[in-house]
């Protein structure tokens, strides 16, 4: 076989490879590129049907929009923060268990995924309402005397969102922690580190990529979250996604809704871009090898 023949074979192989991946490429086109392109296009259409920037102008001139974006970031940051505070210790605990027990815990963490998001959100509504389980128990136990308002406000929104987002933080954090060779901790101890110092100087730094990946995932998911804040916020916590819905349902203004969607998309991409400068995202999300 001569050189040109070999080169032709390689060329053919590449063509075949491209052919095999074309259905996937088509799918990405149809479900991603075209809708997003359409979103961009519609966001530049004014109320009279011609090209206009009025949808974006409104976002800058009206104060309420700024507040909505602020609320969105605030709720997302708080949710992420609480998820870290609850999820990291839990992931750490699981990573130290023998694999069989850890798998049981993992199933428990994943269990909520088997139930619909809507069901879980309404369940919280029932639990947290004025005469709900939580209030009744707390009063019976003497924790507080009067039913307190823990739903239809920021508290309820956060409780629901943390519950739903927690697995997204725990899974990558747990994965990163499991991958930490226990000999590192032994080596640290052997070199003179107390358990506490071994944790902070060795275990914690090695687990941060997983923690960061989880936190980023939670934050980005929160930015576009709709159902839980809509149900548990009781209209007091207005996030971007809810404004998009009201623009369409109440005002039938597709242009304004699309512009909001575009801004949210750009902001989310911006967050990811900034994050990628600090951490190798591919590695943190388990995409790349070590």
């Amino acid at each position: 076989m001569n050189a040109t023949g070999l080169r032709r074979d390689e060329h053919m192989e590449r063509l075949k490879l491209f052919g095999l991946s074309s259905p996937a490429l088509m799918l990405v086109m149809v479900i991603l590129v075209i809708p997003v392109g359409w979103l961009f296009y519609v966001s530049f259409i004014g109320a009279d049907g011609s090209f206009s920037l009025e949808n974006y102008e409104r976002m800058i001139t009206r104060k309420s929009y700024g507040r909505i974006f602020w609320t969105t970031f605030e709720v997302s940051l708080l949710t992420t923060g609480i998820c870290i505070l609850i999820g990291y210790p839990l992931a750490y605990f699981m990573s130290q268990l023998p694999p069989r027990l850890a798998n049981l815990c993992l199933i428990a963490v994943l269990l909520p995924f088997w139930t619909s998001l809507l069901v879980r959100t309404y369940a919280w509504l029932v639990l947290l309402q004025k005469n709900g389980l939580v209030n009744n128990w707390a009063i019976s136990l003497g924790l507080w005397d009067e039913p307190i308002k823990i739903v239809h406000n920021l508290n309820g929104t956060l409780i629901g969102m943390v519950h739903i987002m927690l697995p997204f933080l725990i899974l990558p954090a747990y994965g990163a922690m499991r991958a930490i060779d226990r000999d590192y901790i032994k080596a640290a101890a052997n070199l003179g580190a107390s358990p506490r110092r071994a944790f902070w100087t060795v275990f914690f730094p090695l687990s941060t990529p997983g923690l960061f990946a989880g936190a980023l995932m939670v934050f980005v998911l929160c930015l576009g979250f709709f159902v839980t804040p809509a149900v548990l916020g009781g209209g007091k916590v207005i996030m971007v996604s809810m404004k998009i819905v009201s623009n369409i349902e109440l005002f039938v203004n597709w242009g304004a809704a699309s512009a909001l969607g575009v801004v949210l998309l750009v902001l989310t991409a911006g967050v990811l871009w900034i994050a990628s400068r600090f951490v190798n995202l591919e590695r943190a999300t388990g995409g790349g090898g070590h």
Partner: protein
Amino acid sequence: MTVTNTSADALPITVRNVTKTYGRVHALDNVSLDVKSGEFLTLLGPSGSGKTTLLMVLAGFTRPDQGSLKFGDAEMIRQPPHLRDVGMVFQNYALFPHMTVEGNVGYPLRLRRVPKPEIAARVEKALATVQLSGYGERRIDQLSGGQKQRVALARSIVFEPRILLMDEPLSALDKKLRDRMQIELRQLHEKLGMTTVYVTHDQREALTMSDRIAVVNFGRIMQLATPQQLYDQPENKFVADFIGDSTFLDVQRDGDTCLVGGTPLKTTRPVPPGDSLSLMMRPERIHLIEGAPAPDDNVFEATVSDLVYQGESFLLYAHIRNGPEVAVRGAIRGDTYGRLPKPGATVRLGLHAADAVIIADGGL
């Protein structure tokens, strides 16, 4: 060569009646062991023998069911690992991937709150000791296997522990590098003089490096001796079988004489007590007899079954009449290989009286 740490600073290790069970398995079965100060002692045994468990007891990572462990005069058995002040080189090196070489080697010093300029100086000195000067800024994943090995070593000696433990540190290296590192570790030990306990399953490594070797199996120490004693005069069949190659012939005791296949055995070696005895035959101690045998040779008639060329030596397999198959190893010089007997030929094998080692059975 400058002596940075004399043997006087090294600590002896005293292990007494240490037992560790996992379920019904005895990982360590009433082990007692004395490591002299400044000594290079190797724990040698097959996998699952308990040698690593014993090392982990010394390091403090495994808590035994009972027993005592002393470094010098201080009882250590309940001391947590971070207060034991022993250096350890792990099998996979366990270098922290989020720190540079300098960060790794300086880690034990930072824990001990050594002032910064002194840390830099001592790290540099430790790196120089393992011949890695100037590698301080490197990341761990930029190092080759041999370099990682040296960094791990530097990290374990930089805080000048008086005891150094090593868990199969060379097993991940290729053969050439392993051979070189064996010599380097040996020289480093002579230079630093710390009491060293080294774990390996590689008998050649153990024979090359150690002052003394403890052969471990079934959680017990089968024999503790110098490399030469261990090879020349094994105390039991396990050690004789595990170290080097050997074939065993049944020995009958008849008063003061020993009979092999009905013939009295000529030997200058001590005969152990007991009735169940074996003659140990090492391939390189057996020779082919041409012409008349020497007066203190034991002679065995045998039939050649195979002849193998191995470069520097040949290996000849022969069936002893009414006995097992034995291997004979000899050097190849000039045209000796061409003149060796071919399979099927009858030969006489000689074993000198000084090489006729009699072993008590048991231990297997």
